[in-house]
């Protein structure tokens, strides 16, 4: 073996010796979430060290369902996330299309307002949004309250503007010469071409809605209208509550997203990385 390849081998070993413990530490909370979700409560609160799953998941789930209507809350979360994702992708890609492909009065102002306010903290709009939705519109504890206000998110507009402006103009001009209407060009030429970007955007928006906590906590606090994270959050800190049940709920919120992440990793990463290429 040459010294060059020997040093390569040494570096490869050092790399794995460093990265493996770090990866184990990083996976540990997720692993423990699964382990806790399968342990009875008296097992979780016992002095021994337990690192392997047991078989108590179903009982824990039943305890969770007794503490709060978690299945109902999951139903709300799924419906809200699906509707929100669809609407947000539609609205923001329409807006992104307009900003990318047309010249119009006020375009500069719209872009300036979006870019100029994008780094403002969300907390700034929380109180007026709450007053508006709960008091002025009387929409607290409704689906509309969960779905519509978060649609303001401008990430998709910038993302889709970028996607559409990279497409060659000839493509759309050819259709225009044929007399195809603009909305048909958008729907049947531009959107299909933007499929990978739409997938990345949809995944990021779905995840954001699925995990959203603060807004649903404020606006939908009635038991029958809570999303799953809010319902689970109400149990944390109660004295008489099944922690195995809470962990079963945490697993039900997390594992589907992990599966989606593994299956659609490329789109996921594209969606997150796109945040940096504004």
């Amino acid at each position: 073996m040459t010294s060059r390849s020997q040093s390569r081998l040494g570096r490869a070993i050092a790399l794995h010796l460093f990265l493996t413990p770090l990866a184990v530490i990083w996976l540990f909370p997720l692993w423990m979430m699964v382990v806790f979700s399968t342990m009875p409560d008296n097992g979780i609160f016992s002095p021994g060290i337990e690192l392997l799953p047991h078989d108590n998941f179903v009982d824990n789930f039943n305890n969770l369902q007794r503490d709060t209507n978690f299945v109902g809350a999951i139903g709300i979360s799924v419906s809200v996330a699906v509707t929100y994702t669809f609407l947000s992708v539609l609205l923001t890609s329409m807006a992104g299309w307009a900003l990318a492909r047309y010249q119009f009065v006020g375009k500069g102002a719209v872009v300036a307002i979006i870019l100029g306010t994008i780094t403002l903290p969300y907390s700034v709009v929380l109180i007026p949004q709450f007053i508006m939705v709960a008091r002025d519109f009387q929409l607290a504890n409704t689906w509309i309250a969960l779905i519509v206000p978060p649609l303001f998110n401008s990430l998709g507009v910038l993302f889709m503007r970028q996607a559409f402006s990279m497409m060659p103009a000839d493509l759309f001009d050819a259709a225009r010469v044929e007399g195809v209407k603009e909305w048909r060009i958008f729907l049947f030429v531009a959107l299909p071409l933007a499929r990978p970007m739409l997938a990345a955007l949809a995944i990021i928006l779905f995840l954001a809605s699925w995990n959203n906590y603060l807004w649903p906590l404020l606006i939908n606090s009635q038991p029958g209208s809570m999303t799953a994270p809010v319902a689970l959050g109400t149990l944390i800190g109660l004295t008489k509550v099944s922690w195995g049940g809470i962990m079963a709920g945490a697993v039900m919120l997390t594992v589907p997203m992990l599966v989606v992440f593994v299956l659609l990793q490329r789109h996921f990463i594209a969606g997150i990385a796109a945040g940096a290429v504004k």
Partner: protein
Amino acid sequence: MRHQNATAYRFLTPYLLIFSIFWVWPIISSFLISFQATRTVPWRFAPTFNWGRLIGDPAFYNALKNTLLILVIQVPVMISLAIVMAVLLNSPLLKVRGLYRFAFFAPVVVGEVAYSAVFRLMFNLNFGIINKLLNSVGLPSVDWFSNVTPAMALIMIAVTWRWAGYNAIILLAGLQSIPDDVYEAATLDRVSKVKQFFYITLPLLKPIIVFCAVLSIIGTMQLFTEPFLITERGGPGGGTETLGLLLYRQGFRSLNFGYASAVAYTMAGLAIAITLVQLWLTRDPK
């Protein structure tokens, strides 16, 4: 190019309506509310009512201090860790890359409530796995929830676990856009890997590092769920109370919208200052 106002606004209007109602107007409205006394009906204009109270409020300074303390410790640690993760994940020597990527990126999909619950259990004083592991190597248990310093450390550990991989994804995308021949040339010139990292990678990555830092600062500045759920409403005794939590308590527990808006605008002021620093750091040298 000719103007296409009608067509453009047909595509733009639906989004613009929502954006104006639920983002642009609330930004203005929140500013106006901060100058009103909101616990009288009707609200009355009282320019110094909330801001005057804010300036003299120990609870505000406590929350501000805690938030800044978390910022200055947690963000640099996390960004450094994210850079290390990204650089090592990008190494051509790495085997089973997918597994390592999964380990570091998986927390990105985990919701705040789910992971807060797990961290609460893991760091439990008597039955938490962390203290059990500390004991098993001869170290004493740490009371993570009743003392301020460990409680703050716990919040920082939790946030770092949740967000380091997210930043690593962004940084990795940045690394992969650095052309290989830069490194090949450096290797031919016998520049060591460590020197390559400090003299090639870091400078080329700087705009993205600054971007990640700004994103993280603005995120951490609004920190709410972790002190709300993990250390139980900012405990012990307000020791982990953040600006986000103060805003929540004032706005939605005491229904004091005016004061909460003043707190919110303090965060906005910090965010604007930080964004300006970012623009200055990443300006084009002319």
